[in-house]
């Protein structure tokens, strides 16, 4: 096993006017070296919170995150333990994650010097890193505003690499970019994962990109993972009705003018999650027990995991196509 990161029964809570809101309500995940795990879900499902909790920006209320054998602790003002330097995050907005008043070189070199490299060597290494992410050598002496969104995202990636990242948590790294930069930055990330054997959690709401680059996919709904499996399993035969609905909602640019299927209703308020299965109020296949009993996260015969009363542990997944839809009341 090349497991580099594991998340065990992680719970992250926010304080909202005195009440605790569980943004992440018990999540288990595994990540291996050289693997891309796609994490998908609608906005507000807790996927960014999960990403932040994995790197320690947010503290866990329950459960733990194990990175390379040691539990991740919440970041404090003090120096980060040496061991966790290799656990890095890339954020969505490349305009907000770089200091606008410092040169690119200084920002990349910081990561190297803090990591113990001598300043004289750091400059050459920073140049190498910028070349790795496809930026010209003179980029070192320029400021963030002199770069486009796609280039800034490359700088953010170079900075994560400066800390010789072995796990990258990429939170919507290409969503803020134009179509042509999206393809470039996505290719860069895939390339790094392959060449440096980095493990990556790719958080995105865009299922088509996740399908393209991920090895495995985890689908999140209202703070919980509802299904994980290989890309093929998830796309060819989704075992959870929510996964199926998400995939059906993707519009295709194939010129066939097919209208995507919508999933009525909104993600419920996490302050008062629905009883039983959290998806049951929107689920077209909901049964009476779904409103009462919360389904367990079970492993099926094909090794995927799913939390749905229609699927039974250790058995082949039941095809959702064969189950009659409940007529909307």
């Amino acid at each position, binding site marked *: 096993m090349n497991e580099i990161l594991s998340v065990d029964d992680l719970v992250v809570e926010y304080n909202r006017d005195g009440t605790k809101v569980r943004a992440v309500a018990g999540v288990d995940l595994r990540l291996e070296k050289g693997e891309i795990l796609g994490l998908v879900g*609608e906005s507000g499902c807790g996927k960014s919170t999960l990403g932040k909790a994995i790197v320690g920006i947010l503290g866990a209320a329950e459960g733990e995150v194990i990175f390379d054998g040691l539990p991740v602790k919440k970041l404090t003002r003090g120096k980060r333990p040496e061991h966790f330097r290799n656990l890095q995050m890339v954020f969505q907005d490349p305009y907000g994650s770089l200091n606008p008043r410092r040169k690119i070189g200084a920002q990349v070199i910081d990561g190297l010097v803090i990591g113990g490299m001598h300043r004289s060597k750091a400059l050459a290494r920073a140049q190498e890193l910028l070349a790795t992410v496809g930026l010209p050598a003179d980029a070192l002496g320029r400021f963030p505003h002199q770069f486009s969104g796609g280039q800034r995202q490359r700088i953010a990636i170079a900075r994560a690499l400066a800390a010789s990242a072995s796990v990258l948590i990429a939170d919507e790294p290409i969503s803020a970019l134009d179509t042509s*930069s999206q393809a470039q930055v996505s290719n860069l990330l895939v390339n790094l994962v392959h060449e440096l054997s980095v493990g990556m959690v790719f958080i995105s*709401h865009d299922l088509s990109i996740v399908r393209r680059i991920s090895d495995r996919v985890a689908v999140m709904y209202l703070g919980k993972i509802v299904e994980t499996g290989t890309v093929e399993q998830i796309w060819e035969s989704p075992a959870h009705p929510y996964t199926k609905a998400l995939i059906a909602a993707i519009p295709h*640019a194939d*010129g066939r003018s097919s209208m*995507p299927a919508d999933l*009525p209703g909104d993600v419920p308020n996490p302050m008062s999650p629905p009883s039983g299965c959290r998806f049951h109020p929107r689920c077209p296949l909901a049964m009476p027990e779904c409103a009462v009993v919360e389904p367990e996260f079970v492993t099926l015969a094909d090794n995927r995991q799913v939390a749905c009363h229609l699927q039974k542990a250790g058995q082949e997944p039941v095809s959702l196509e064969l189950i009659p839809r409940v007529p909307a009341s």
Partner: protein
Amino acid sequence: MTLLNVSDLTVTLATSTGDADAVRNLSFSLDRGEILGIAGESGSGKTMTALSIMGLLPYKGKASGSINFDGKEVLGSSKKKYQHMRGKEISMIFQDPMTSLHPMLTVQTQLTEHMRYHDKMSKSAARESALKLLDTVKIPDPASALRAHPSQFSGGMRQRIAIAMALACEPKLLIADEPTTALDVTVQAGILRLLHQIRDERNLSIMIITHDLGVLSSLTDKILIMYAGSEVESGPARELLSNPRHPYSQGLIAALPGASREGKFLTSIDGMPPELGNFPSGCAFHPRCGFAEDRCSVPPIDATVVSKGHRIYCPVNPFAHDRVEQS
């Protein structure tokens, strides 16, 4: 029947380095009940095109050419004339519905405002039609929605309210600028269905601006692709998406993650779009184009009709095969 005819539209904006053309010699038309999609990356001039139709160009922005709407020239109209047209004849919805909704006013106040202004409706009559509108856009429990404030709704519901506002005075044209970009796919699908249904019921013309070709594929009748302020290709949606002819459109479609299923790497277009004021001469795409020849940098670039209603602005036309007519 043609509702909107834009010809030779050029939009000039004032930048810190002098005037620059954000839209260059753009021509297109839109029939009644037709849905036109304008696609392009940021800075390609798609939003400026929409704003010039609405008479909402930024300070010191100038438009020249002609915009003929419903048989009348609107470019250069007086402030007052635009005021009577906006919201009544032409409506617009935006990417973030919160920018068009006032956070402190109830939905009723906002939804009835232009019915009372344009159509001089009484308060109660306006309320009645507001209820109907909310029902049309599928807001559950319209009566209590009228009393609520925008913050009490989710993003998708806010966009539905913005659409209801836009439809209040039964405009002939709805301009939608990235209406689903800020929404989740599941919610996006609902909004796309709603727009389609409204078009069918009201014979409304819709101009939708987006960078998402998937959205265009599901919704539009015809598509116009822009690059650096100019049209590069336009044609019937189905034909253009399945058979793109301009190297830029080819590249955009190939760069989509769903386009091919082989391998993890996406086909990308090298380089990046030029900045305003720095558009290359001739075909602006030529520095990034794999098929570029010397003549590509020499203006003017003329349109080549590749089939009925489908034209490209590419002198090389590298994907030409059989019946190619020069226009």
